[in-house]
């Protein structure tokens, strides 16, 4: 890892806003929402204080993983326009502070989860942090265009942790929710990586558009949409969710597929002509919010 390109002002203590920025608060919102939905969809009543604490721990764990990711990738972030303004590459924070902050937050979130909820939820939380930091960030990201496919598992854990915190076990529905996010991650990130391809190329990150080109990436986006849609709808025919969820999942997945096909039909190679990709990326975030929202609504209506 090249740290020579990053300079920082060690004379000043870190500003709290830079420490907060290390946790990637915007990404955290999706993590918190899916975890909360996993908890609310579980067939168990959770004490509000313990439920709140479990969600807080998931948010802190996600923040810790993000901070450790930024600590390790500071040299890469400095090379990309999209990330050059982050606290470490911009020189507003020293790397040791980021490392201590990330490790401390990780231990704190896992221990508090174990004490407040249960140790199964704490174990899955620890596994998700380690997976994101060691498997995705350290091992895969700089080595293979499959980085996001395998690394996507890290982001798929929150609903499973929410469920485990509520029930103390993991059944088929949280496993399907895990599969849904796991299969959603590649088309979501590949849509983004198509229009920021030059950033990844400049930093030497082997994202699929950099290694295999835009055409192959667009084909993969369309291909991954099919099993993703199947995983999204599956809880309904399996009797794990009702018609409200089934109809919402089918309609949202159809819309996702239509947007993915528009991406497939696009031939643009410059970001200016990549409206379909930008639309798919924006919709993919809404898709996950809406599908998990529909699941909770459905479970409440069934109850």
């Amino acid at each position: 890892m090249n740290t020579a390109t990053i300079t920082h002002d060690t004379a000043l203590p870190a500003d709290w806003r830079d420490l907060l920025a290390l946790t990637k608060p915007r990404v955290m919102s999706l993590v918190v929402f899916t975890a909360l939905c996993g908890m609310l969809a579980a067939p168990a009543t959770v004490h509000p204080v313990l439920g709140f604490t479990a969600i807080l721990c998931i948010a802190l764990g996600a923040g810790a993983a993000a901070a450790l990711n930024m600590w390790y990738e500071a040299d890469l972030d400095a090379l990309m326009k999209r990330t050059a303004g982050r606290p470490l590459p911009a020189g507003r924070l020293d790397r040791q502070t980021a490392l201590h902050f990330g490790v401390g937050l990780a231990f704190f979130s896992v221990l508090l989860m174990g004490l407040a909820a249960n140790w199964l939820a704490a174990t899955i939380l620890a596994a998700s942090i380690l997976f994101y930091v060691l498997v995705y960030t350290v091992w895969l990201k700089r080595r293979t265009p499959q980085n996001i496919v395998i690394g996507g598992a890290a982001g798929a854990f929150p609903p499973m942790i929410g469920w485990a915190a509520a029930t103390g076990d993991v059944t088929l529905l949280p496993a399907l929710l895990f599969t849904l996010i796991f299969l959603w991650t590649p088309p979501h990130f590949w849509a983004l990586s198509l229009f920021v391809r030059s950033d990844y190329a400049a930093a030497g990150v082997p994202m699929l558009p950099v290694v295999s080109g835009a055409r192959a990436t667009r084909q993969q986006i369309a291909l991954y949409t099919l099993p993703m849609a199947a995983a999204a709808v599956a809880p309904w025919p399996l009797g794990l969710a009702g018609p409200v969820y089934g109809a919402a999942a089918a309609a949202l997945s159809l819309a996702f597929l239509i947007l993915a096909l528009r991406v497939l039909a696009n031939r643009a190679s410059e970001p200016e002509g990549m409206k379909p990709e930008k639309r798919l990326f924006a919709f993919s975030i809404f898709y996950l919010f809406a599908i998990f929202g529909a699941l909770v609504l459905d479970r409440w209506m069934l109850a």
Partner: protein
Amino acid sequence: MTDPRDEESRRRQKTRAIIMALLLGAFVILVYAITIAKMGMLQ
């Protein structure tokens, strides 16, 4: 004349100390609430 960097440094330290105090206070309240909730579940 004071160095503006010293002033900035002190301002940041003060802000961080206040935030840390608030977080510790919130943590104490949270641990208390968790204890009460767990005791309620045992009864």
